[in-house]
């Protein structure tokens, strides 16, 4: 009886030893769902080039990514916004110095149902719509229909960009619908002829009508030349200046023919 138990334990221990005995290096990437498609594709391409390195990618949001950097549970944090003052304070308190790397640009595009005839809205009109001051499409030259305003949850990176660039610190009115992801906004707008929403560039599809802002279309060129008013930088944060595998990955990400090509494939705007 006792001997058997001993045997089982010996086998278990040796199996455990074997499984951890493979000398693969690990790299953890965590954070914003906006950056997730880029990180996912980049990780796959990276692992093809360096088969010894095991990259695991997960979402969870910009805030969670930063938190994971501070806690030391991830090597790279993806964020769709810059780190906040409070987060920096918390990091420094724990002796961590997050280093940002801008890896791509993204445009945030106002979208309507394809049946809506409106093609262009000014920033002021968008602001008034999201403040609940303009409530009917006919006030901006459309059909006589109530406007259904769809916004993102107040803590998403996309919302913060919208808030600072369009709302100019005014509040989105409480009657606005809230959706928890870019995909959900796209879904809701494509099913509702009353609706207006905003999504990242990569979420545009033929069931959505992207409109111009102040007469400028959301394209790669207009974002790079800063003519398009609602664009942002996407970041990867590392814990201190990167070294080893983390540095290898960041270099891969910034390489014009490798990582930056993947950025374009994922539907975002490469740095150069």
């Amino acid at each position: 009886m006792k001997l058997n138990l001993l045997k089982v334990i010996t086998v278990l221990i040796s199996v455990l030893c074997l499984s951890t005995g493979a000398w693969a290096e690990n790299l953890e990437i965590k954070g914003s769902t906006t950056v997730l498609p880029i990180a996912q594709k980049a990780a796959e391409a990276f692992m093809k080039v360096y088969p010894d390195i095991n990259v695991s990618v997960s979402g969870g949001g910009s805030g969670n990514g930063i938190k994971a950097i501070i806690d030391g549970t991830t090597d790279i944090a993806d964020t769709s916004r810059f780190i906040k003052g409070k987060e920096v304070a918390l990091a420094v308190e724990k002796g961590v110095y997050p280093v940002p790397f801008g890896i791509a640009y993204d445009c945030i595009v106002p979208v309507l149902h394809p049946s809506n005839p409106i093609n262009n809205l000014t920033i002021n009109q968008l602001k008034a719509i999201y403040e609940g001051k303009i409530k009917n499409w006919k006030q901006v030259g459309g059909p006589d229909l109530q406007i259904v305003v769809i916004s993102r949850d107040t803590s998403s990176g996309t919302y913060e960009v919208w808030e600072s660039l369009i709302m100019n610190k005014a509040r989105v009115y409480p009657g606005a619908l809230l959706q928890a992801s870019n995909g959900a906004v796209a879904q809701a707008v494509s099913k509702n002829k009353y609706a207006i929403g905003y999504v990242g560039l990569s979420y545009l599809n033929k069931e959505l009508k992207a409109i111009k802002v102040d007469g400028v279309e959301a394209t790669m060129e207009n974002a790079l030349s800063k003519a398009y008013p609602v664009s942002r930088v996407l970041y990867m944060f590392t814990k201190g200046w990167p070294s080893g595998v983390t540095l290898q990955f960041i270099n891969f990400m910034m390489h014009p023919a490798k990582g930056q090509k993947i950025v374009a494939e994922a539907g975002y705007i490469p740095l150069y």
Partner: protein
Amino acid sequence: MNKKRQLKDRGIEYIFFIFALISIVILCMILFFLFREGLPVFGLVSVKDFLFGEYWYPTSEPPDFGIFPLIVASLLVTMCSAAVAIPLGVMTAIYLAEIASKRIKEFAKPMVELLASLPSVVIGFFGMVVVAPFLQEAFDIPTGLNLFNASLMLAFMSVPTICTISEDAIASVPVELKEASLALGATHWESIVRVIIPASLSGLSTAVILGMSRAIGETMVVLMVAGGAAMVPSSVFDPVRPMPASIAAEMAEAPFRGEHYHALFATGMVLFVFTLIFNFIADYISNKHRQVGASTL
């Protein structure tokens, strides 16, 4: 030899005791964590402003942490879903326990229980993609993502809970009561209404309340189909944002240990208190109105 057996018996008792203890310890740890992360927000806003504040702007400067619209939304969604789910669940249970033939019962009961095993994200997706456009067309309203849609989807989720527990309650009514009623000349229908339902009332109430506490805590469905506007609705077709939806949508991006983070945990505390009240009521009713046996010859 005897001593060894006694020892073994004691040993097994302790093992079971430890297993029972584990779940209690885990519950206490979660509670401790919830309150530790939630209470600091009350250094910023008073309990009254938090519970009855009308505006929820956690990220603006200065922030507003008023969850009144969220509490109202949670309660309304739960009540409306109960209005749909209670008749549906209880009547199905009566039918299955009393009226249905054995063959129908063997077929229908697993079906109802299968409804319980549908993942909430599937029900939410159904509400978002199928029910919302339908409601919008049928009632000519601006958005199908609203209080009504969410209540309907939550009702689908609580019907199996209500039905299964009610059915057990009705089936456990002593058969002598029914026989006595029939022997006195009452019809089947009269026996059901006058004898069987009153006798199983405590079980039925427990079923209803457990079903409702499932609805109030449900997250995915309300996140997807309730619309998410943080205001007190003026009609059943207005979008609302119940507490779990707010927590789920915002927690991922809230700065760690920031005010917003604490406020979301405090919302979780409020939600916990609501569920606790529901469970206490269920417990109280099931103890108070218990049918205690039947006398036979």
